[in-house]
């Protein structure tokens, strides 16, 4: 799983949770780094933060769709509502603070399909 977030602490905690659940986790602090990892590694799912400096989550997701359209993307955001064209790009969209179980459940859903 590739996690992209500019919030260092949040990213670290998320990584810990995912690893605790048995996922192998790659992390990137911004969009360009995330895309490079996404291109280089066999990523099976992406957890993407929306609000990031430089490229926001929507732009990163669009680029990822171009590179590997089949890889599921989960978009996280602190914002309550995001533009439709962004949410349409990703498989799942959830707000931060819904809790770890909800995140793990959504992620599990990707792998069940």
């Amino acid at each position, binding site marked *: 799983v590739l996690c992209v977030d*500019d*919030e260092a*602490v*949040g990213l*670290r*905690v*998320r990584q*810990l*949770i995912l690893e*605790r659940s048995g996922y192998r986790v790659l992390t990137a602090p911004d969009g360009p780094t995330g895309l490079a990892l996404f291109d280089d590694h066999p990523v099976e799912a992406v957890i993407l933060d929306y*609000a990031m*400096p*430089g490229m926001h989550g929507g732009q990163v997701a669009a680029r990822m769709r171009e590179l590997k359209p089949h890889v599921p993307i989960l978009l*996280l955001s*602190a*914002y*309550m509502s995001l533009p439709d064209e962004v949410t349409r790009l990703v498989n799942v969209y959830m*707000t*931060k*603070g819904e*809790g*770890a*179980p909800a995140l793990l459940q959504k992620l599990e859903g990707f792998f069940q399909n």
Partner: protein
Amino acid sequence: MRPSANQPPLFPAGNSLNLTQFNRILIQILLTPVLALAVLAAILVWQIRSSQNTAARVQATGDIIAACSNAEKLMVDQETGLRGFQITGDEKFLQPYRDANAPLEDALNNLQRALEAQHEAPDVVDAVRSAHTTWQTSYALPLIATTRAGGNTYDPALNMTGKLQMDAVRARLADLLDREANLRRGQLVHWRSQSRHIIEGLILLALLVGVAISVFTVSRLHTVSDVFEGTLEGLRRHAQATYESEERLRTTLTSIGDGVIVCDPDGNIELVNTVAQNLTGWTQADAFHRPLSDVFHIVNEDTRELVETPVDKVKRLKRVVGLANHTVLLRRDGSEIQIDDSGAPIYNRAGDLSGIVMVFRDITEQRRTQSVLLATEKLAVAGRLAATIAHEMHNPLDSVANLLYLIKNEQDPATSAHYLQMAEGELARMGQISRAMLGLYRESKMPVPIDVKEMLQSVLVLLEGQTRQAQVSVTTSLPEGLEVEGFPAELRQVFTNLFANALDAVDMGGHIHVTATASNPTSPTRNGVLIHIQDDGSGIAPDALAHIFEPFFTTKGERGTGLGLWVSRGIVDKHGGSITVRSESNPSDSEAHGTTIEVFLPRLSAAKTPSLT
């Protein structure tokens, strides 16, 4: 008040008469009759002199006649005495003859002198004397001698001779008398006609002089009267113009939108215009001649202490006292209104204080509007920050929730402790953000010391998310220990605003530099802190730069209220500080563009109250 320049002149130029000219006319009017009367008197004296001469001549002629008559009488006495002696031979009868001799000689001498005095020929006297002498020597003396000798003296021839001789004497005297009587008559006729002429002449002259004086005086007085009339007309016009000008000013005063009270130099009310009557609740009639302090009570809106009226202030400072001091006017009915007032001295031409005019206006509405705008702007700031702050809060919240989940499933106490520590750190961040947010709203009642570094950092914390989003690098140079006095929430609002503006101005990857420096600690007015917020953004166009502090001016379209800088300046001004903007918007030179905002805050705040929000 000085008379306006377009007033008509007091005296029309064509009709003017100065004091010298007027005095000259007065002197002419006084002197002309005196001169005329003097001439008249001279003529009168001359005429009287001439008349007196005539009278003297009449008198002299009278004297001659009298002397003549006297001589004749004496001769008659001699003749009579001689006749008595001739008849009686008694010497006693001859006595009158002898007694008359000397007086007769005197009388003839007198007559001669009188004639000489009258420049008449005296030879007639010589002729009389000679005829008398002939009578005496050839008749009287021989007759006396003959009578004494006892001779016959009745010879008719002799007596006839004597009679003829005496007749000759008498005839000469009669001639003289006749001549003199004629002369006297002529003289009397002359004197009478002369007297009549004098009277007629005098009457005529008096009439002429009277008429001349009248005509002259009337003409001179006409000149004066014309000028006086012109002056009066000028005065009337001037009075009318003054009245109109005063009426115009009075109407202007009464219909002006501000309250105006005019006082005399002692501070007693002379005029209260309509607005002032409405504002104070006092009518012109009630307020007239009352001391201003009876009518115009103003107190400080916070301390409720009585405030010096502008009139007292003007009297004390002898200059114009400005508007906008935010006081509360206690009206006659006890209600209150917020006012701004000002006062100005009125000087007369001599430069002495002749009155004081006070202008004040009801700013209750204005203050209400202002406070609504301030509240609006505060809400707008909050609104702009809300999304960022939600994001800022959400991130640590998410981390804390996730950490709690991890702790719940963690058996190793050391790892749990590590997670707890991380969660604590995130909570501390949230606390910081929430404190910064609250700091924008919680306001103290009195100015408090503010750590400039702490305040600016709390603002930067609030905007950290936005800054990161915009990929703007922020550098700061904030030394410790810089302190100002003021209202922290208001100042936070100012710097949030200024910093947000800088963020809006810079492009992706731009740079903002925030510095604070101590400013001139020795100067009483510039002792404080200078804060610079410098960006390398697009800058502000020169035509916009002139308006950025005006309310509702915005370059951000729908995103801005146009109140940010207006409110910021209001707050900084209230603190006794200043805010200035330098901007370069030269697009061709990337080094040259950008905006620097400089805020000066005094170490001791001038502000005594927070804004009405």
